[in-house]
């Protein structure tokens, strides 16, 4: 069995982002970049499935610029076998375009399982997994917090939904999107980081795929959110209750 894990290079989650002064987007020059944390969980899950002999090969796919090779290497150092980078000119590729590229790769690679994070922490769209599942006509198991392979070859996936936990059974091939509680990603060891440098990354150009990935949304401007000002410190509990009752009038 083969797993295709899709990873996105994003601004590191610890970085406090800055909106560009011309309002065209968010400053990415000289900013620390990392693998989208949800995608890291996806890589970790694939590696664990391989360690448990559920799958035999892990392919990491990223779509972006040359720099995304570094993100792929991170996945290879965690235990994936090889990588594919699809180069795009436009950094503002939208989820539907991304989904179409992933579909193209799926048709060549024929993975049994496509795993990716439930959302990227930059555009916060939460769409790509669902889009790929729809384009491929594969079942989708979104927001996964537990995966269990059944004897009949199906997969039980527990999903984090608003009211609690839902479990569904899906046939393979399928798309899984990962939520926070699925696992805790490992740190790659130095020997594995060195080994990852020898692993192969195939580089493709999105132009050669002949897909319509032109954007459907026009970004008019990106601005700072309205700021929340710090209020006052209250001395004690009666003071707090007094403020909530008589000033804010919320209790």
């Amino acid at each position, binding site marked *: 069995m083969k797993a295709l894990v899709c990873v996105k290079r994003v601004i590191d989650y610890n970085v406090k982002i800055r909106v560009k002064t011309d309002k065209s987007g968010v400053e990415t020059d000289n900013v620390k970049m990392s693998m989208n944390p949800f995608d890291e969980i996806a890589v970790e899950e694939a590696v664990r499935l391989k360690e448990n002999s559920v799958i035999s090969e892990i392919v990491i796919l990223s779509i972006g610029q040359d720099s995304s090779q570094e993100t792929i290497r991170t996945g290879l150092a965690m235990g994936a076998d090889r990588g594919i980078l699809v180069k795009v000119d436009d950094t503002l590729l939208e989820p539907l375009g991304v989904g179409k590229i992933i579909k193209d790769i799926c048709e060549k690679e024929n993975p049994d399982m496509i795993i990716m994070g439930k959302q990227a*922490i930059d555009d916060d769209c939460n769409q790509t997994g669902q*889009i790929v599942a729809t384009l491929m006509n594969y079942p989708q198991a979104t927001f996964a917090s537990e995966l269990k392979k059944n004897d009949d070859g199906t997969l039980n996936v527990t999903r984090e939904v608003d009211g609690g936990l839902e479990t569904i059974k899906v046939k393979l091939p399928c798309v899984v999107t990962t939520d926070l509680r699925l696992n805790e990603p490992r740190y790659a060891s130095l020997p594995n980081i060195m080994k990852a440098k020898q692993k192969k990354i195939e580089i493709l150009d999105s132009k050669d795929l002949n897909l319509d990935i032109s954007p459907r949304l026009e970004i008019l401007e990106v601005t700072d959110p309205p700021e929340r000002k710090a209020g006052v410190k209250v001395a004690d509990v009666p003071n707090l209750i007094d403020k909530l009752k008589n000033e*804010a009038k919320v209790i």
Partner: protein
Amino acid sequence: MKSLVIIEHDGKNIKQTSLSTITAAGKISKEVEVIALGNNISEVVDKLKKTDIISKVNYSDDEFLRFQIAENLSEVITSFLKEKNFSHILLPSSTFGKNLGPKIATTLDVQQISDIIEIFDHETFARPIYAGNAISKVKSKDSLKVITVRPTCFEPCAQNSNVSDEKFEISSNQTRNVEFVDYDQSESDRPELTAAKIVISGGRGMQNGENFKLLEGIADKLGAAMGASRAAVDAGFVPNDWQVGQTGKIVAPDLYIAVGISGAIQHIAGIKDSKFIACINKDEEAPIFNFSDYGLVGDLFEVLPKLENELK
């Protein structure tokens, strides 16, 4: 222009997220219809017929739709849309809408606009990016628009009307690759997190799940919903659906009380639309104080019992 809102319900009640989504749809187009799908949902349909803003309740009642499997719902909705001329399809950006919306959009070859917080006109919307640390104003070039709506940014619409309904039969009824297995619903008599007027949340400072009892008495007295930071959920103190923040639930109550929560940007992203924020934390340098209207520096194990006592 005519909008269609896809209703989220639990088989008996309409989720408040849907009523907020209807309000958003009313700001986009004069005409708004809804579609409800499920099995034995006559109660839901009856309640929907009282809803303001909408002109028609479309619904289908079939075993095929019982477990709200996204594949099944998407198939029925996209086939329903074929003979209609809706300009906008809207869903709440709850886990229900996030799961289903992109399927419908993709089937129609549309780029969904996720989690809108403001409507400028029928094609221009604001949506948060980077956990709400920036706001993106986008214009959609798709002729049909599929949109998920952040429910806390739109008031739930009232229900004092009497609108007509139309049942439709579905053609497909074969379950294919997905099967429902189990639903482990969190039992609670408290209001829902995303709908409550007051929310009280605990963080890592609560130290363990047992200590969340200290918040319960206060929540009871205030009629508040209970939530938690990601740290508290990851540590296993409370169930996952309590999580408030960028990747959990977005809340916007009249009052949010953060107890033992330091205030990571991802948590702030989920609470900053609250009318008032109060916090209790022993570390006076904690970032949460920078976002709170009222901050109390103190040991929560001393403060909480006092607070419960003094609340009438």
